[in-house]
Protein backbone atom coordinates (compact mmCIF):
# COMPACT_ATOMS: atom_id res chain seq x y z
CA UNK A 1 0.00 0.00 0.00
CA UNK A 2 1.40 3.40 -0.86
CA UNK A 3 2.54 5.58 2.00
CA UNK A 4 -0.09 8.30 1.71
CA UNK A 5 -2.89 5.74 1.79
CA UNK A 6 -1.30 3.88 4.71
CA UNK A 7 -1.10 7.12 6.70
CA UNK A 8 -4.76 7.81 5.96
CA UNK A 9 -5.65 4.33 7.12
CA UNK A 10 -3.75 4.87 10.37
CA UNK A 11 -5.41 8.23 10.97
CA UNK A 12 -8.84 6.66 10.46
CA UNK A 13 -8.10 3.80 12.85
CA UNK A 14 -6.59 6.13 15.41
CA UNK A 15 -9.90 7.96 15.59
CA UNK A 16 -12.14 4.95 15.37
CA UNK A 17 -10.76 1.45 15.59
CA UNK A 18 -14.26 0.02 15.22
CA UNK A 19 -14.41 0.79 11.49
CA UNK A 20 -14.63 -2.48 9.59
CA UNK A 21 -12.22 -3.42 6.81
CA UNK A 22 -15.18 -3.10 4.43
CA UNK A 23 -15.90 0.48 5.44
CA UNK A 24 -12.22 1.38 5.47
CA UNK A 25 -11.79 -0.04 1.99
CA UNK A 26 -14.70 2.02 0.64
CA UNK A 27 -13.53 5.18 2.37
CA UNK A 28 -9.98 4.81 1.10
CA UNK A 29 -10.86 3.64 -2.38
CA UNK A 30 -8.95 0.37 -1.83
CA UNK A 31 -9.98 -3.29 -1.81
CA UNK A 32 -10.96 -5.11 1.37
CA UNK A 33 -7.95 -7.43 0.93
CA UNK A 34 -5.53 -4.54 0.62
CA UNK A 35 -6.86 -2.98 3.80
CA UNK A 36 -6.92 -6.23 5.77
CA UNK A 37 -3.37 -7.11 4.66
CA UNK A 38 -2.05 -3.68 5.47
CA UNK A 39 -3.58 -3.77 8.93
CA UNK A 40 -2.04 -7.14 9.72
CA UNK A 41 1.36 -5.96 8.47
CA UNK A 42 1.09 -2.84 10.63
CA UNK A 43 0.15 -5.01 13.60
CA UNK A 44 3.11 -7.33 13.02
CA UNK A 45 5.47 -4.39 12.68
CA UNK A 46 4.04 -3.04 15.92
CA UNK A 47 3.07 0.23 14.25
CA UNK A 48 -0.43 -0.59 15.43
CA UNK A 49 0.32 -1.54 19.04
CA UNK A 50 -3.19 -2.26 20.24
CA UNK A 51 -6.84 -1.22 20.17
CA UNK A 52 -8.19 0.75 23.07
CA UNK A 53 -11.52 2.02 24.22
CA UNK A 54 -11.69 5.43 25.82
CA UNK A 55 -13.69 4.95 28.99
CA UNK A 56 -14.61 7.63 31.46
CA UNK A 57 -14.09 5.47 34.55
CA UNK A 58 -15.04 8.41 36.74
CA UNK A 59 -18.63 7.65 35.89
CA UNK A 60 -18.20 4.04 37.04
CA UNK A 61 -15.89 4.00 40.07
CA UNK A 62 -13.65 6.16 42.27
CA UNK A 63 -10.30 4.93 40.98
CA UNK A 64 -7.43 7.34 41.28
CA UNK A 65 -4.83 8.40 38.73
CA UNK A 66 -1.54 10.12 39.47
CA UNK A 67 1.27 11.52 37.41
CA UNK A 68 4.59 10.83 39.07
CA UNK A 69 7.76 12.64 38.15
CA UNK A 70 10.94 10.63 38.71
CA UNK A 71 14.44 11.99 38.86
CA UNK A 72 16.99 9.24 38.43
CA UNK A 73 20.73 8.65 38.16
CA UNK A 74 21.02 6.12 35.36
CA UNK A 75 23.94 3.69 35.41
CA UNK A 76 25.92 3.13 32.20
CA UNK A 77 25.06 4.00 28.59
CA UNK A 78 21.68 2.28 28.39
CA UNK A 79 20.72 3.20 31.93
CA UNK A 80 17.41 4.88 31.03
CA UNK A 81 16.36 1.96 28.89
CA UNK A 82 17.12 -0.55 31.66
CA UNK A 83 15.26 1.52 34.21
CA UNK A 84 12.30 1.97 31.90
CA UNK A 85 12.09 -1.77 31.35
CA UNK A 86 11.95 -2.26 35.06
CA UNK A 87 9.40 0.47 35.79
CA UNK A 88 7.01 -0.47 32.99
CA UNK A 89 6.69 -4.01 34.39
CA UNK A 90 4.61 -2.76 37.31
CA UNK A 91 0.95 -3.30 36.48
CA UNK A 92 0.08 -0.05 38.26
CA UNK A 93 2.08 1.86 35.65
CA UNK A 94 -0.21 2.61 32.69
CA UNK A 95 1.94 5.12 30.83
CA UNK A 96 5.66 5.80 30.93
CA UNK A 97 7.60 8.51 29.17
CA UNK A 98 11.25 9.56 29.21
CA UNK A 99 11.21 13.33 29.40
CA UNK A 100 13.42 16.30 28.70
CA UNK A 101 13.62 19.01 31.35
CA UNK A 102 13.53 19.08 35.15
CA UNK A 103 12.93 15.37 35.67
CA UNK A 104 13.57 12.16 33.76
CA UNK A 105 10.52 9.90 33.75
CA UNK A 106 6.86 10.73 33.79
CA UNK A 107 4.89 7.79 35.11
CA UNK A 108 1.12 7.57 35.02
CA UNK A 109 -0.10 5.34 37.81
CA UNK A 110 -3.59 4.01 38.48
CA UNK A 111 -4.93 2.66 41.72
CA UNK A 112 -8.05 2.21 43.83
CA UNK A 113 -7.23 4.84 46.44
CA UNK A 114 -4.84 7.67 47.16
CA UNK A 115 -3.25 5.49 49.80
CA UNK A 116 -2.66 2.63 47.41
CA UNK A 117 -0.88 4.91 44.97
CA UNK A 118 1.12 6.61 47.72
CA UNK A 119 2.28 3.23 48.99
CA UNK A 120 3.20 2.14 45.49
CA UNK A 121 5.23 5.29 44.84
CA UNK A 122 7.07 5.25 48.13
CA UNK A 123 7.41 1.49 48.37
CA UNK A 124 8.14 0.49 44.79
CA UNK A 125 9.26 3.47 42.74
CA UNK A 126 11.18 5.49 45.34
CA UNK A 127 12.94 2.38 46.53
CA UNK A 128 14.58 1.73 43.18
CA UNK A 129 18.24 2.39 43.73
CA UNK A 130 18.67 4.86 40.82
CA UNK A 131 15.62 6.93 41.75
CA UNK A 132 16.71 10.13 43.49
CA UNK A 133 13.33 11.62 44.19
CA UNK A 134 9.66 11.49 43.24
CA UNK A 135 6.91 14.07 42.95
CA UNK A 136 3.35 12.80 42.81
CA UNK A 137 0.45 14.76 41.31
CA UNK A 138 -3.03 13.32 41.66
CA UNK A 139 -5.44 14.06 38.85
CA UNK A 140 -8.78 15.59 39.81
CA UNK A 141 -10.80 15.74 36.60
CA UNK A 142 -10.12 14.36 33.16
CA UNK A 143 -11.37 16.81 30.56
CA UNK A 144 -9.82 15.44 27.42
CA UNK A 145 -7.82 12.39 26.45
CA UNK A 146 -6.38 11.45 23.07
CA UNK A 147 -8.19 14.34 21.46
CA UNK A 148 -11.56 13.27 22.84
CA UNK A 149 -13.58 15.62 25.01
CA UNK A 150 -14.70 13.71 28.12
CA UNK A 151 -17.07 16.35 29.34
CA UNK A 152 -19.77 17.05 26.83
CA UNK A 153 -21.13 15.36 23.79
CA UNK A 154 -20.57 17.52 20.74
CA UNK A 155 -23.74 19.16 19.55
CA UNK A 156 -24.14 20.06 15.89
CA UNK A 157 -24.72 23.78 16.06
CA UNK A 158 -25.43 24.20 12.39
CA UNK A 159 -28.92 24.99 11.22
CA UNK A 160 -30.79 21.92 9.97
CA UNK A 161 -30.94 23.00 6.33
CA UNK A 162 -28.82 25.67 4.65
CA UNK A 163 -28.06 26.50 1.03
Amino acid at each position, binding site marked *: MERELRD*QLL*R*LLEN*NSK*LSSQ*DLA*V*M*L*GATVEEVANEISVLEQEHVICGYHTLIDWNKINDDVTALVELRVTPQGGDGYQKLAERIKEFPQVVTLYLMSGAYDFLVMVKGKTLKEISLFVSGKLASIHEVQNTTTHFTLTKYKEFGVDFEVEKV*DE*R*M*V*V*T*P
Partner: protein
Amino acid sequence: MKELLSQKILQLKPSGIRKFFDVANEVPGVISLGVGEPDFPTSFHVREAGIQAMQSGKTFYTANSGLKELRKEICIYTEEKIGNRYNPDTEVMVTVGGSEAIDIALRTIMNPGDEIIYIEPSFVSYLPCITMAGGIPVPIELKAENQFRLTKDQLDAAITPRSKALILSYPNNPTGAIMEQHDLEELLEVIQKHNLLVISDEIYSELTYGKKHISIASLPGMRDRTILINGFSKNFAMTGWRLGYALANCEVMEQMNKVHQYAIMCAPTISQYAAIEALRHSSEDVERMKESYNQRRRYLYHELARLKLPCFQPEGAFYIFPDVREFGMSSEEFAVDLLKQEKVAVVPGSAFGDSGEGFIRISYAYSIAELKEALLRIERYIQRKREELA
Protein backbone atom coordinates in the same frame (compact mmCIF):
# COMPACT_ATOMS: atom_id res chain seq x y z
CA MET B 1 -49.03 47.13 3.20
CA LYS B 2 -48.04 45.23 0.10
CA GLU B 3 -48.98 48.02 -2.30
CA LEU B 4 -46.18 50.04 -0.75
CA LEU B 5 -43.56 47.45 -1.58
CA SER B 6 -41.49 46.75 -4.64
CA GLN B 7 -43.24 44.69 -7.30
CA LYS B 8 -39.93 43.15 -8.24
CA ILE B 9 -39.36 41.90 -4.71
CA LEU B 10 -42.96 40.81 -4.18
CA GLN B 11 -42.68 38.64 -7.25
CA LEU B 12 -39.45 37.06 -6.12
CA LYS B 13 -39.99 33.45 -5.00
CA PRO B 14 -38.81 32.75 -1.47
CA SER B 15 -35.91 30.28 -1.32
CA GLY B 16 -37.04 26.65 -1.50
CA ILE B 17 -34.40 25.87 1.06
CA ARG B 18 -35.86 28.32 3.52
CA LYS B 19 -39.27 26.73 3.07
CA PHE B 20 -37.89 23.26 3.65
CA PHE B 21 -35.93 24.48 6.64
CA ASP B 22 -39.14 25.60 8.31
CA VAL B 23 -40.56 22.10 7.91
CA ALA B 24 -37.40 20.24 8.96
CA ASN B 25 -36.79 22.47 11.94
CA GLU B 26 -40.08 21.36 13.49
CA VAL B 27 -39.21 17.66 13.48
CA PRO B 28 -37.60 16.48 16.74
CA GLY B 29 -34.79 13.90 16.52
CA VAL B 30 -34.12 14.71 12.88
CA ILE B 31 -30.85 13.60 11.30
CA SER B 32 -29.96 16.28 8.84
CA LEU B 33 -27.98 15.78 5.67
CA GLY B 34 -29.21 19.12 4.51
CA VAL B 35 -26.47 21.45 5.55
CA GLY B 36 -24.41 23.45 3.07
CA GLU B 37 -21.50 24.16 5.34
CA PRO B 38 -18.51 22.23 6.70
CA ASP B 39 -18.94 20.23 9.91
CA PHE B 40 -15.44 21.23 10.99
CA PRO B 41 -15.20 24.27 13.20
CA THR B 42 -12.74 26.91 12.01
CA SER B 43 -9.17 25.83 12.79
CA PHE B 44 -8.14 26.85 16.26
CA HIS B 45 -5.17 28.96 15.16
CA VAL B 46 -7.49 30.95 12.91
CA ARG B 47 -9.96 31.47 15.75
CA GLU B 48 -7.07 32.60 17.93
CA ALA B 49 -6.06 35.15 15.30
CA GLY B 50 -9.61 36.51 15.48
CA ILE B 51 -9.43 36.69 19.28
CA GLN B 52 -6.04 38.36 19.06
CA ALA B 53 -7.42 40.97 16.66
CA MET B 54 -10.27 41.70 19.04
CA GLN B 55 -8.02 41.89 22.08
CA SER B 56 -5.64 44.28 20.43
CA GLY B 57 -8.51 46.55 19.52
CA LYS B 58 -8.73 45.97 15.77
CA THR B 59 -12.26 47.25 15.87
CA PHE B 60 -12.26 49.94 13.19
CA TYR B 61 -13.32 50.02 9.56
CA THR B 62 -10.77 48.80 7.06
CA ALA B 63 -10.21 50.18 3.58
CA ASN B 64 -13.30 49.57 1.41
CA SER B 65 -11.57 46.85 -0.52
CA GLY B 66 -10.24 45.21 2.67
CA LEU B 67 -7.01 45.13 4.67
CA LYS B 68 -4.04 45.52 2.40
CA GLU B 69 -2.27 42.63 4.12
CA LEU B 70 -5.21 40.37 3.39
CA ARG B 71 -5.49 41.51 -0.24
CA LYS B 72 -1.81 40.71 -0.68
CA GLU B 73 -2.28 37.25 0.83
CA ILE B 74 -5.27 36.63 -1.44
CA CYS B 75 -3.14 37.52 -4.48
CA ILE B 76 -0.30 35.25 -3.36
CA TYR B 77 -2.72 32.41 -2.71
CA THR B 78 -4.48 32.89 -6.05
CA GLU B 79 -1.26 32.97 -8.01
CA GLU B 80 -0.11 29.81 -6.25
CA LYS B 81 -3.37 28.04 -7.01
CA ILE B 82 -4.25 29.12 -10.56
CA GLY B 83 -1.21 31.02 -11.80
CA ASN B 84 -2.99 34.35 -12.34
CA ARG B 85 -1.43 37.53 -11.01
CA TYR B 86 -3.69 40.25 -9.63
CA ASN B 87 -2.69 43.63 -8.32
CA PRO B 88 -3.54 43.77 -4.59
CA ASP B 89 -4.19 47.52 -4.80
CA THR B 90 -6.57 47.58 -7.73
CA GLU B 91 -7.85 44.12 -8.59
CA VAL B 92 -9.06 42.53 -5.34
CA MET B 93 -12.00 43.21 -3.09
CA VAL B 94 -12.80 41.57 0.24
CA THR B 95 -16.55 40.99 0.60
CA VAL B 96 -19.13 39.79 3.10
CA GLY B 97 -19.04 36.18 1.98
CA GLY B 98 -18.97 35.03 -1.62
CA SER B 99 -22.67 35.96 -1.68
CA GLU B 100 -21.97 39.69 -1.55
CA ALA B 101 -19.42 39.34 -4.34
CA ILE B 102 -22.08 37.71 -6.56
CA ASP B 103 -24.51 40.53 -5.89
CA ILE B 104 -21.90 43.27 -6.40
CA ALA B 105 -20.59 41.70 -9.61
CA LEU B 106 -24.08 41.51 -11.09
CA ARG B 107 -25.05 45.02 -10.08
CA THR B 108 -21.80 46.36 -11.53
CA ILE B 109 -22.22 44.85 -14.98
CA MET B 110 -25.98 45.14 -15.45
CA ASN B 111 -27.90 47.39 -17.80
CA PRO B 112 -31.69 46.98 -17.88
CA GLY B 113 -32.71 43.97 -19.93
CA ASP B 114 -29.27 42.38 -20.07
CA GLU B 115 -29.45 38.61 -20.16
CA ILE B 116 -27.34 36.67 -17.73
CA ILE B 117 -26.83 33.02 -18.54
CA TYR B 118 -26.37 30.76 -15.56
CA ILE B 119 -26.32 27.05 -14.97
CA GLU B 120 -28.97 25.05 -13.16
CA PRO B 121 -29.11 23.28 -10.79
CA SER B 122 -26.97 25.68 -8.84
CA PHE B 123 -26.69 27.82 -5.73
CA VAL B 124 -29.95 29.55 -4.87
CA SER B 125 -28.79 33.17 -5.16
CA TYR B 126 -28.01 33.58 -8.84
CA LEU B 127 -31.52 33.90 -10.20
CA PRO B 128 -32.83 36.36 -7.59
CA CYS B 129 -29.62 38.42 -7.68
CA ILE B 130 -29.87 38.72 -11.47
CA THR B 131 -33.52 39.76 -11.19
CA MET B 132 -32.87 42.25 -8.41
CA ALA B 133 -30.04 43.80 -10.42
CA GLY B 134 -32.48 44.36 -13.28
CA GLY B 135 -31.26 41.61 -15.57
CA ILE B 136 -33.03 38.73 -17.23
CA PRO B 137 -32.03 35.29 -15.94
CA VAL B 138 -31.39 32.69 -18.63
CA PRO B 139 -30.93 29.27 -17.05
CA ILE B 140 -29.21 26.40 -18.81
CA GLU B 141 -30.45 23.04 -17.60
CA LEU B 142 -27.52 20.78 -16.98
CA LYS B 143 -27.88 17.05 -17.53
CA ALA B 144 -26.83 14.14 -15.37
CA GLU B 145 -25.67 12.32 -18.53
CA ASN B 146 -23.16 15.15 -19.09
CA GLN B 147 -22.04 14.82 -15.46
CA PHE B 148 -23.72 18.19 -14.90
CA ARG B 149 -21.03 19.94 -16.92
CA LEU B 150 -21.84 22.80 -19.25
CA THR B 151 -21.31 21.96 -22.91
CA LYS B 152 -20.46 24.28 -25.76
CA ASP B 153 -23.71 23.45 -27.57
CA GLN B 154 -25.81 24.25 -24.53
CA LEU B 155 -24.08 27.59 -24.11
CA ASP B 156 -24.36 28.36 -27.80
CA ALA B 157 -28.10 27.67 -27.73
CA ALA B 158 -28.63 30.12 -24.87
CA ILE B 159 -26.94 33.06 -26.58
CA THR B 160 -28.99 36.00 -27.86
CA PRO B 161 -27.94 39.52 -28.88
CA ARG B 162 -28.75 40.61 -25.31
CA SER B 163 -26.44 38.06 -23.63
CA LYS B 164 -24.13 39.89 -21.26
CA ALA B 165 -22.50 37.37 -19.01
CA LEU B 166 -22.25 33.74 -17.98
CA ILE B 167 -22.24 32.62 -14.35
CA LEU B 168 -20.29 29.43 -13.76
CA SER B 169 -20.12 27.69 -10.40
CA TYR B 170 -17.74 24.78 -10.23
CA PRO B 171 -17.11 22.74 -8.12
CA ASN B 172 -20.86 22.82 -8.04
CA ASN B 173 -23.41 23.01 -5.27
CA PRO B 174 -25.70 20.93 -5.36
CA THR B 175 -24.42 18.38 -7.90
CA GLY B 176 -20.76 17.96 -6.87
CA ALA B 177 -19.79 18.36 -10.55
CA ILE B 178 -16.53 19.91 -11.69
CA MET B 179 -15.38 21.27 -15.05
CA GLU B 180 -12.03 20.00 -16.27
CA GLN B 181 -9.65 22.04 -18.37
CA HIS B 182 -10.87 20.62 -21.68
CA ASP B 183 -14.51 21.26 -20.73
CA LEU B 184 -13.74 24.90 -20.01
CA GLU B 185 -11.59 25.29 -23.12
CA GLU B 186 -14.52 24.19 -25.24
CA LEU B 187 -16.55 27.17 -24.02
CA LEU B 188 -13.93 29.81 -24.79
CA GLU B 189 -14.78 30.19 -28.45
CA VAL B 190 -18.45 30.95 -27.71
CA ILE B 191 -17.58 33.25 -24.80
CA GLN B 192 -15.10 35.24 -26.84
CA LYS B 193 -17.16 35.31 -30.01
CA HIS B 194 -20.11 36.84 -28.17
CA ASN B 195 -17.96 39.03 -25.95
CA LEU B 196 -19.40 37.61 -22.72
CA LEU B 197 -18.20 38.39 -19.25
CA VAL B 198 -17.85 35.42 -16.93
CA ILE B 199 -18.68 35.45 -13.25
CA SER B 200 -16.95 32.37 -11.90
CA ASP B 201 -18.03 31.37 -8.40
CA GLU B 202 -15.26 29.08 -7.16
CA ILE B 203 -16.14 28.99 -3.48
CA TYR B 204 -15.43 25.23 -3.31
CA SER B 205 -12.13 25.49 -5.22
CA GLU B 206 -10.12 23.54 -2.63
CA LEU B 207 -12.59 20.70 -2.55
CA THR B 208 -11.97 18.55 -5.59
CA TYR B 209 -11.10 14.89 -5.32
CA GLY B 210 -8.46 13.39 -7.55
CA LYS B 211 -8.53 16.17 -10.13
CA LYS B 212 -7.06 19.61 -9.59
CA HIS B 213 -9.45 22.55 -9.71
CA ILE B 214 -9.09 24.63 -12.86
CA SER B 215 -10.27 28.22 -12.91
CA ILE B 216 -11.67 29.55 -16.16
CA ALA B 217 -9.86 32.82 -15.34
CA SER B 218 -6.56 31.01 -15.86
CA LEU B 219 -7.29 30.10 -19.48
CA PRO B 220 -5.93 32.16 -22.39
CA GLY B 221 -7.70 35.46 -22.86
CA MET B 222 -10.00 34.91 -19.89
CA ARG B 223 -8.35 36.76 -17.05
CA ASP B 224 -9.75 40.14 -17.98
CA ARG B 225 -13.24 39.01 -18.85
CA THR B 226 -13.70 36.95 -15.69
CA ILE B 227 -14.86 38.14 -12.29
CA LEU B 228 -13.46 35.45 -10.06
CA ILE B 229 -15.29 34.88 -6.79
CA ASN B 230 -13.98 32.87 -3.90
CA GLY B 231 -14.11 32.95 -0.12
CA PHE B 232 -13.26 31.44 3.20
CA SER B 233 -16.55 29.74 4.08
CA LYS B 234 -16.13 26.34 2.48
CA ASN B 235 -12.41 26.04 1.80
CA PHE B 236 -11.38 27.13 5.29
CA ALA B 237 -14.53 26.17 7.23
CA MET B 238 -15.29 29.79 8.11
CA THR B 239 -18.97 30.21 7.16
CA GLY B 240 -19.95 32.26 10.20
CA TRP B 241 -17.14 34.78 9.69
CA ARG B 242 -18.87 35.96 6.51
CA LEU B 243 -15.86 36.60 4.35
CA GLY B 244 -15.30 36.22 0.64
CA TYR B 245 -13.52 38.05 -2.12
CA ALA B 246 -13.61 38.97 -5.78
CA LEU B 247 -10.76 39.32 -8.26
CA ALA B 248 -11.09 41.10 -11.58
CA ASN B 249 -9.42 43.37 -14.06
CA CYS B 250 -8.83 46.82 -12.51
CA GLU B 251 -11.39 48.59 -14.70
CA VAL B 252 -14.12 46.22 -13.53
CA MET B 253 -12.91 46.23 -9.95
CA GLU B 254 -12.92 50.02 -9.76
CA GLN B 255 -16.64 50.03 -10.50
CA MET B 256 -17.38 47.06 -8.24
CA ASN B 257 -15.69 48.88 -5.42
CA LYS B 258 -18.12 51.75 -5.75
CA VAL B 259 -21.11 49.47 -5.25
CA HIS B 260 -19.42 47.74 -2.33
CA GLN B 261 -18.34 51.03 -0.80
CA TYR B 262 -21.84 52.50 -0.75
CA ALA B 263 -23.67 49.32 0.20
CA ILE B 264 -21.36 47.67 2.73
CA MET B 265 -18.44 50.00 3.50
CA CYS B 266 -16.11 47.10 4.28
CA ALA B 267 -16.15 43.46 5.34
CA PRO B 268 -15.89 42.71 9.10
CA THR B 269 -12.44 43.67 10.37
CA ILE B 270 -12.02 40.85 12.91
CA SER B 271 -12.82 38.30 10.23
CA GLN B 272 -10.27 39.84 7.91
CA TYR B 273 -7.51 39.38 10.46
CA ALA B 274 -8.51 35.76 10.98
CA ALA B 275 -8.50 35.26 7.20
CA ILE B 276 -4.89 36.41 6.94
CA GLU B 277 -3.95 33.65 9.35
CA ALA B 278 -6.09 31.16 7.40
CA LEU B 279 -4.32 31.92 4.13
CA ARG B 280 -0.87 31.80 5.67
CA HIS B 281 -1.05 28.69 7.78
CA SER B 282 -3.91 26.41 6.79
CA SER B 283 -2.66 24.22 3.99
CA GLU B 284 -2.37 21.20 6.27
CA ASP B 285 -5.80 21.77 7.83
CA VAL B 286 -7.33 22.05 4.38
CA GLU B 287 -5.67 18.80 3.31
CA ARG B 288 -7.05 16.99 6.37
CA MET B 289 -10.58 18.26 5.80
CA LYS B 290 -10.39 17.36 2.15
CA GLU B 291 -9.15 13.87 3.00
CA SER B 292 -12.06 13.40 5.33
CA TYR B 293 -14.64 14.67 2.80
CA ASN B 294 -13.17 12.37 0.21
CA GLN B 295 -13.57 9.34 2.51
CA ARG B 296 -17.19 10.25 3.15
CA ARG B 297 -17.78 10.90 -0.54
CA ARG B 298 -16.55 7.43 -1.42
CA TYR B 299 -18.60 5.92 1.38
CA LEU B 300 -21.80 7.69 0.39
CA TYR B 301 -21.41 6.99 -3.32
CA HIS B 302 -20.78 3.32 -2.53
CA GLU B 303 -23.82 3.10 -0.28
CA LEU B 304 -26.15 4.83 -2.75
CA ALA B 305 -24.95 2.45 -5.46
CA ARG B 306 -25.73 -0.44 -3.14
CA LEU B 307 -29.24 0.96 -2.68
CA LYS B 308 -29.48 1.21 -6.47
CA LEU B 309 -30.26 4.90 -6.43
CA PRO B 310 -29.04 6.29 -9.77
CA CYS B 311 -26.35 8.74 -8.94
CA PHE B 312 -23.66 10.73 -10.66
CA GLN B 313 -20.28 10.35 -8.95
CA PRO B 314 -19.42 13.77 -7.54
CA GLU B 315 -15.87 15.07 -7.90
CA GLY B 316 -16.04 18.29 -5.92
CA ALA B 317 -17.68 20.24 -3.08
CA PHE B 318 -19.39 18.05 -0.44
CA TYR B 319 -22.66 17.04 -2.03
CA ILE B 320 -24.07 14.08 -3.84
CA PHE B 321 -27.15 14.40 -6.02
CA PRO B 322 -29.08 11.14 -6.48
CA ASP B 323 -32.03 10.70 -8.81
CA VAL B 324 -35.29 9.81 -7.04
CA ARG B 325 -37.68 9.89 -10.00
CA GLU B 326 -38.45 6.17 -9.68
CA PHE B 327 -40.62 6.92 -6.63
CA GLY B 328 -43.10 8.92 -8.67
CA MET B 329 -43.01 11.97 -6.42
CA SER B 330 -41.67 15.45 -6.88
CA SER B 331 -38.35 15.96 -5.14
CA GLU B 332 -40.08 18.14 -2.59
CA GLU B 333 -42.70 15.49 -1.86
CA PHE B 334 -39.94 12.92 -1.53
CA ALA B 335 -37.92 15.09 0.87
CA VAL B 336 -40.95 15.91 3.02
CA ASP B 337 -42.08 12.27 3.11
CA LEU B 338 -38.59 11.04 4.01
CA LEU B 339 -38.45 13.65 6.73
CA LYS B 340 -41.83 12.67 8.17
CA GLN B 341 -41.36 8.93 7.98
CA GLU B 342 -37.70 8.48 8.84
CA LYS B 343 -36.65 11.86 10.18
CA VAL B 344 -33.88 12.40 7.69
CA ALA B 345 -33.55 15.84 6.14
CA VAL B 346 -32.22 16.14 2.60
CA VAL B 347 -32.78 19.09 0.30
CA PRO B 348 -35.16 18.76 -2.67
CA GLY B 349 -33.29 19.32 -5.93
CA SER B 350 -36.01 21.72 -7.08
CA ALA B 351 -34.69 24.23 -4.53
CA PHE B 352 -31.71 24.66 -6.88
CA GLY B 353 -33.76 25.42 -9.98
CA ASP B 354 -36.37 23.62 -12.04
CA SER B 355 -33.83 21.26 -13.58
CA GLY B 356 -33.03 19.95 -10.09
CA GLU B 357 -36.53 18.44 -10.03
CA GLY B 358 -36.35 14.68 -9.57
CA PHE B 359 -33.13 14.82 -7.54
CA ILE B 360 -32.23 15.35 -3.91
CA ARG B 361 -29.11 16.95 -2.49
CA ILE B 362 -27.34 14.99 0.22
CA SER B 363 -24.51 16.74 2.00
CA TYR B 364 -21.59 14.72 3.32
CA ALA B 365 -20.34 17.37 5.69
CA TYR B 366 -21.15 14.86 8.44
CA SER B 367 -19.24 12.20 10.34
CA ILE B 368 -19.27 8.64 9.03
CA ALA B 369 -21.30 7.61 12.08
CA GLU B 370 -24.01 10.14 11.20
CA LEU B 371 -23.97 9.15 7.56
CA LYS B 372 -24.35 5.51 8.57
CA GLU B 373 -27.38 6.15 10.71
CA ALA B 374 -28.97 8.34 8.06
CA LEU B 375 -28.36 5.74 5.36
CA LEU B 376 -29.99 3.03 7.46
CA ARG B 377 -33.09 5.18 7.60
CA ILE B 378 -32.96 6.06 3.90
CA GLU B 379 -32.57 2.39 3.03
CA ARG B 380 -35.58 1.47 5.15
CA TYR B 381 -37.58 4.23 3.51
CA ILE B 382 -36.80 3.42 -0.11
CA GLN B 383 -37.31 -0.30 0.42
CA ARG B 384 -40.76 0.38 1.79
CA LYS B 385 -41.51 2.73 -1.11
CA ARG B 386 -40.32 0.21 -3.67
CA GLU B 387 -42.50 -2.48 -2.12
CA GLU B 388 -45.50 -0.15 -2.23
CA LEU B 389 -44.82 0.62 -5.89
CA ALA B 390 -44.17 -3.00 -6.90
